[in-house]
């Protein structure tokens, strides 16, 4: 990342990289901050000028990497609409939290076109979102039971469903409250973050 830190123009490929990397870190942050996995299974690294916690659990790493790999492909084709992290009770299966990342792709920009946006600016936007995720513990209700999580991806209708994926129901929360978080844009992709949770 150090080599690109001074760049002021981004291609589609660079933008996809930034976005999927952001997803990786924000998913890890959510898993840590919401206490879904034991805190001792996370390791601390520096990213976006913040101390980020990333899972050191191998099973979880493989799981996330395979999702992100697929996501990168879809992002490149511009077919992703949303990425949703669903936090559900392990035994009840009830959806307790939904972290939604809305992705809007500017499809008019071709593969080799460069757009102007300083990398630094994007990083500071991302930093703000990550900070908000960290701060979310202050208003989100406590996850009483042991929880697990699931990743949903909203794609365009014409996308071929890969083997490892299946169509799912959106797993909405009945009677939920929503808090919008900040957003960031690479001028190719725009990501809006929000979290909804059980209102009562």
């Amino acid at each position, binding site marked *: 990342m150090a080599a690109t830190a001074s760049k002021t123009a981004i291609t589609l490929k660079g933008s996809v990289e930034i976005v999927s990397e952001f997803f990786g870190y924000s998913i890890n942050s959510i898993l840590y901050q919401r206490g879904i996995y034991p805190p001792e299974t996370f390791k601390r690294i520096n990213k976006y000028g913040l101390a980020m916690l990333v899972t050191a659990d191998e099973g979880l790493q493989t799981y996330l990497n395979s999702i992100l790999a697929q996501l990168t492909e879809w992002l490149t084709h511009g077919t992703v609409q949303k990425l949703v992290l669903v936090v559900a009770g392990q035994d009840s299966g009830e959806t307790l939290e939904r972290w939604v990342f809305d992705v809007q792709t500017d499809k008019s920009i071709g593969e080799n076109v460069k757009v102007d946006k300083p990398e630094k600016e994007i990083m500071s936007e991302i930093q703000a979102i990550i900070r908000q995720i960290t701060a979310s513990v202050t208003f989100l209700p*406590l996850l009483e039971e042991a929880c697990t999580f699931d990743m949903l991806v909203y794609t365009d209708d014409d996308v071929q469903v890969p083997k490892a994926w*299946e169509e799912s129901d959106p797993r909405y929360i009945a009677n939920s409250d*929503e808090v919008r978080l900040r957003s960031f844009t690479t001028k190719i992709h725009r990501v809006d973050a929000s979290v909804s949770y059980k209102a009562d």
Partner: protein
Amino acid sequence: MTSAPLKFECCMDSLQNTPCKRPPSRSSSSSKRGRTPGSRTPHGDRFIPNRSAMDLDVSNFELTRKHLELNTENNDVNASPAKEEYKKELAQTLMHGNPSSKVLAFKSKAPKPAESHQNSLRVLYTQNREASSVPRKYSRQIPQAPERILDAPELLDDYYLNLLDWSSTNILAVALGDSIYLWNASDGSIQQLMQAQGENAHVTSLSWIQEGNHMAVGTSDHKVQIWDVERKKQIRTMTGHRGRVSSLSWNGPLLSSGAKDSLVLHHDVRVADHKVGTLRGHTQEVCGLKWCPWGNMLATGGNDNLLNIWDDRYSSNRGQGSQTPSDQPLHRLEAHQAAVKALAWCPWHKNLLASGGGTADRMIRFWNTGSGACLNAVDTHSQVCALQWSQHDKELVSCHGYSHNQLILWKYPSMVKVAELTGHTSRVLHMSQSPDGTTVVTAAADETLRFWKILSGGDALKKERAAAKESILNSMSIR
């Protein structure tokens, strides 16, 4: 960007002409966008929605486009608005409101967190909840004088005996010389239960069974007697000691007795062959003896400055033969420098024992009986004769001998003195607690019993008070 008034009109139009083919999810999310998250969390000023996230340009575009589409469609569909409505309904039910997207989930599920994992945020949340919902504890008034004083003539001035116990049925038993008297705390009546037989015989210890219908009595002629209190009748006499029986403690139907012969005997009072275990952990008189409220540990204190913690291994001995002596305590604690008579198990914290030492020691010590570690030690500057935990608050009462003959109410675990109560003119030998937990009674060598209402009654009492208050209000409102 067209002129503002036009934009506004467009908005109104598209809202009034409801058949709108915008993906409803977008409309719902845009309606949520307008929502202030602050409405949910009144103090959360951190989450002001930023207008840059709303993207007014896109919204404007969406709204105008819908309007235009609507106009073109209206030309041919105007004839059947019902069909349009039906289409919309159908789309919403079938496609979950978002016809142009697929929801995909990764087939293999995320690895489950470790079984033992508990959300560590629990601490944070519960801390906050308690801080916000429970009002600060009021500091209660602690009376400096005893509520009542009773005479106790011929009370033996002997540190090693245990002559006072308050039953769960609210009857206080005290041994005065060779007799036991029962004082009914509910109506104030006094009865004599028994008188020790024989020359120079006197009562050296007494203890109520948990149910409050029987009492164990230890005497100077080495016997342990069981009395039926209602019928005022002795049920049985148990022998086995070769010295005066100076301490007694019940654990269900099991009675343990400590005596001057340094032994602790376990008696099963239900069977003829009552002796079910012997503990040989002391070399001198056993003056402190307490089963923990959970019944799995016994603390014994002796004149040999030892404090022993025993687990309930006597039960395994029973199978191999009832006479098997056990001389290996779970923990042998040698920290006290004088006789250990004052023992008290914490009622709310398992494995927490408080013990107090005699004249040469003057310390109150707290033990983790699971590990045998000494958690805290406080120098009281006076002989510690007895200890009682409060049932409702995190407090502890200790009573002392020379030089002030006082009671001290401590906060636990800070061990801050809440109150120091003087009144007795000689050392305060024994202490017991009322069944409701509000009052402690002390017996001192000045031959008086004093009742101190210094502990709080806990929730039950507060509820009672609240109910009383409410009933007054109700009766007022009827008039």
